[in-house]
């Protein structure tokens, strides 16, 4: 496939991620911060997020499985996940975390369990999206091209 076509595909794909709510403006901020002195900044931060989220989701699964659920601990983990998802612009994960915290506040275990599934699902989905995004970027760079930047017009 020609370079121009891959670049076009990347732009369209990225835009679709915004349209579908997977990403928000914070992701653009991350891209703006990436520069020659730190060309893998976005990749590094996103990778950190997935390492972090895997640990947190495991902790949450264990915590909700206890006979006496420690809601403070759960809230703390969800707060952290909400924060880091928000920091990378993973909007749907962040929103799922907000819902999760609401059930945690009222100590509703069933609600929490449902939310946990929701958060896991959103993390899984956005991880795939990022993998596609990075793959397209790599293809562009391997062809000697530059990664086009997106402007949010809406």
């Amino acid at each position: 496939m020609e370079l121009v076509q891959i670049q076009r595909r990347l732009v369209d794909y990225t835009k679709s991620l915004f349209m579908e709510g997977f990403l928000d403006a914070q992701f653009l901020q991350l891209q703006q911060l990436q520069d020659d002195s730190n060309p893998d900044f976005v990749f590094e931060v996103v990778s950190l997020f997935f390492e972090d989220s895997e640990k947190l989701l495991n902790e949450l699964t264990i915590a909700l499985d206890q006979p006496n659920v420690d809601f403070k601990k759960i809230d703390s983990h969800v707060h952290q996940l909400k924060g880091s998802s928000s920091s990378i612009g993973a909007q749907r994960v962040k929103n799922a975390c907000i819902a999760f915290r609401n059930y945690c506040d009222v100590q509703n275990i069933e609600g929490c369990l449902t939310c946990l599934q929701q958060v896991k699902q959103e993390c899984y989905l956005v991880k795939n999206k990022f993998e596609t995004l990075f793959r397209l970027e790599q293809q562009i760079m391997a062809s000697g091209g530059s990664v086009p930047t997106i402007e949010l017009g809406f």
Partner: protein
Amino acid sequence: MVMAASETKFHVLAVDDTLIDRKLIEKLLKTSSYQVTAVDSGTKALEFLGLNNNDHHDVEVNLIITDYCMPGMTGYDLLRKIKESSSFKDIPVVTMSSDNIPSRINRCLEDGAEEFFLKPVQLSDVNKLRPHLMKRRTQTNVNKRKSMDEIVSPDRARARYNELEVK
């Protein structure tokens, strides 16, 4: 190494227990031409400043930016400790949080924080730091020229977060 005061980069101490946010704030600050030291707890911040020992410290920190929610010592605890310290009370402190809680924000501002940023912190937020740093530098230069026993702080207008944006 001798540098003219106007050429020295401002040194910001960033405090956040989350690695991602530390990386982010560090990048934001470096992009804005600040020298950055990032630590993961209030305790480490105090150690870095030299508050926990009576040894003479050479480190010069021009601003401290700290997350609010941290295990052990919160950002608010850190703010209080800095403001209660004779050596460091004049270092501007900025607090940040991913939670939008007006009472929390007002408390920090009332107890000495210059600004309160909602996370995720933006470049536009970091741009707000410079006036606090420049004012301090001007003050310090003035104080070096005259001999004064006390630094007289000018009245600072504090932004009251009565109406908060919902992000």
